[in-house]
Each structure stands twice: as structure tokens, then as C-alpha cells.
């Protein structure tokens, strides 16, 4: 009979886990919708910015800009973007793994590597093994442009002051709810914008073309970080939704198996009891 009680307890615990995972799935699905909307909202701005950059750089060499100078790579900053929380499949660990391989690559070339972590997970896991120079946790909860600006400012200041010769971002790009593409993207030095022919119209530039470019380049760096953060956020919710869906499915099949076992044990117990009663009655009659 102890077996019956044990099974009952296990069924109860699996069911309550299932409730949690399915609730988490619902929450992530709702948040995913919002994150996807934010990406869509960002798109016209990004497109316009690229067009303006292309226009200005079509007739002007951008390589003079302090953010575009190619230097021999001695110090590299890696911005690793993860979530603040776990339970989202391979989302965090893939970023961490990639960060380590990228760091190894640069170290093999003789460069020293520093890491800036976005999100609690990358901070906690990379702190022990790597040179973590800064962290940003707030922006992961609610991605906004100010947060992206904070991250971008660290990279931009370090780059201009010569602390870093190259800045790369490692993050998950959002493809759809089930698929995230792990990306390694160069942030600094700025890669020259694709200047398409015929894009440069006869514009009046105010104050000057050079100062406009000085305004546009930092803006585009910030928006690149912002886009990466939005992608990472949407990917996080997508990854969590998928993994919680799987967890719920697994819990369901586990609970069904346990229920079957429980019912079998219960029937066996009843049959046993009846046999005992019948046996007892026959002994009295005989």
C-alpha cells in the first residue's frame, strides 16, 4: 500500500510542475509578442538611418572618423548578451560557449580580451574564468534606447580612448519563436556603410556634412546595440516558450505514465482484498 501513496505524491508533484511550466510558457508567449512588436517598430528608423548614412558617406570618406579607425588588434572587448534568468533551453549557454571560443581565437592571435556582460547569466558564468570589465542587468528586463546607449557608451568611450581596438557583440538573433541564430557581430571599428550610387542627391547640409556624419555614426552604433538587445530579448522569450512547451509535454506524458501505474496498483490491491475476503468466506463455509 505504501507504493500507492508514493505514486499519488509523485503524480501531484508532476502536475504542479506542469502547471508552472505551462504558465511560464503562456507568459513568454505574451512577452514574445511584445518583443516582436518592438523589433518591427525599430525597423523604419533603422532603414532611414542606413539610407542617410549611405547618402552622406557616398561623397565623404568616413574612415577619418574616430569610430572607424582600424588599429592593430591588441585589446578586444566582447559584449556578451544573455538573459537575467534561466529555464530557456540553450539560449544562455550557447552565448557563453561562443564568447569563450571567440575569446580563445583572439587570444591565440596575441590579443588580450575583456568581456562586458549584459544579463545576469553571462555575468555569473563568465566572471570566474574571464576578465569581466562591466555589467548591465537592468536593460534586459526592459529593453529601451537609454539602456542600449549605456552599453554603447562603454564600448565607444573605451574605443576612442584606445582601451580597446575592436568591439564585438555575441548575441542571439531572433528568427522565429523556435529558432535563434547565434551571432557574432563587429561593433567597432564601424564598418563603412554601403554607399550605393545615385543615392547622394543635391542636398543642403547643415551645419556641414562632416558634423552630420559625426552625429550619425554614434547614433548608428547605438541603434546597432539596441537592435541586438531587442533581438536577444525576443530570442529569450522564444527560447523559453519552446523549452517550457517541451517541459509541459514531457510532464504530461510522465503524469499519464504514473497514472496508469497508479491505477494498475490500485486494481491489484482491490483484487487482492476480494481474494482475501472470498478465501476467508470459503474457509468458514468449509
Amino acid at each position: 500500500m505504501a507504493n500507492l501513496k508514493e505514486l499519488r505524491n509523485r503524480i501531484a508533484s508532476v502536475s504542479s510542475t506542469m502547471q508552472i511550466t505551462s504558465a511560464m510558457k503562456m507568459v513568454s508567449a505574451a512577452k514574445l509578442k511584445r518583443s516582436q512588436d518592438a523589433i518591427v517598430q525599430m525597423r523604419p528608423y533603422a532603414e532611414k538611418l542606413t539610407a542617410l548614412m549611405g547618402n552622406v558617406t557616398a561623397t565623404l570618406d568616413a574612415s577619418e572618423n574616430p569610430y572607424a579607425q582600424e588599429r592593430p588588434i591588441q585589446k578586444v572587448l566582447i559584449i556578451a548578451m544573455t538573459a537575467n534568468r534561466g529555464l530557456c533551453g540553450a539560449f544562455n549557454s550557447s552565448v557563453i560557449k561562443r564568447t569563450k571560443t571567440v575569446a580563445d581565437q583572439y587570444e591565440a592571435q596575441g590579443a588580450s580580451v575583456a568581456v562586458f556582460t549584459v544579463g545576469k547569466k553571462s555575468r555569473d558564468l563568465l566572471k570566474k574564468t574571464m576578465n569581466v570589465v562591466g555589467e548591465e542587468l537592468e536593460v534586459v528586463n526592459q529593453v529601451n534606447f537609454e539602456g542600449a546607449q549605456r552599453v554603447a557608451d562603454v564600448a565607444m568611450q573605451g574605443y576612442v580612448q584606445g582601451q580597446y581596438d575592436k568591439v564585438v557583440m555575441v548575441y542571439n538573433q531572433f528568427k522565429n519563436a523556435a529558432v535563434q541564430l547565434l551571432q557574432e557581430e563587429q561593433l567597432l571599428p564601424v564598418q563603412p556603410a554601403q554607399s550605393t550610387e545615385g543615392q547622394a542627391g543635391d542636398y543642403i547640409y547643415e551645419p556641414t556634412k562632416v558634423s552630420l556624419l559625426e552625429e550619425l555614426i554614434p547614433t548608428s552604433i547605438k541603434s546597432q546595440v539596441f537592435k541586438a538587445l531587442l533581438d536577444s530579448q525576443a530570442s529569450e522569450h522564444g527560447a523559453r516558450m519552446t523549452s517550457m512547451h517541451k517541459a509541459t509535454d514531457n510532464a504530461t506524458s510522465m503524469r499519464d505514465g504514473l497514472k496508469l501505474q497508479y491505477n494498475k496498483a490500485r486494481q491489484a490491491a482491490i483484487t487482492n482484498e476480494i481474494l482475501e475476503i472470498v478465501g476467508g468466506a470459503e474457509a468458514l463455509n468449509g
Partner: protein
Amino acid sequence: MALHVDILTPEKSLFKGEATAIQFPGTEGLFQILTDHAPIMASLAQGSIVIDGASGRTTVDIQGGVVEVSNNVVSVLAR
């Protein structure tokens, strides 16, 4: 012929619509754009964009940014 105005930030669109005249807080001082303005690209300082349209006057506050005008299409990348 009216101006098509689109004021964008990375997070959302602040204004989208038609206007007859728009005043900008340029880094070199205030300036106004009317219809059929020559193509211009200008950086903006902190201040407010004043849009005069058919339905009256709208004011949008920005922290800075860039404006591009060409063919009566005004796009503002604001901060």
C-alpha cells in the same frame, strides 16, 4: 501639396501625418521648412518640433537628432 512628415525614434513613431509648415530646433538655430523646400539634411538640437497642419498645431519634444527633407517628404530621426 502638403509635406509628409514622419518623426521616428528607435522605440516608436512619434508623429506621422501631413503638414504645411514645420519648425525645427536646428543645432545652428531655429528654422522652418515649407512645401517645396530644397533637399536638406540638418542636425537637430534639444527642443520642440512645431508642426502646422490642417488640423492645427502639434508640438513634439525631442532630445536631438537629424532631419532629412526631399521631395516634400520630411523624415526626422529623433532621440
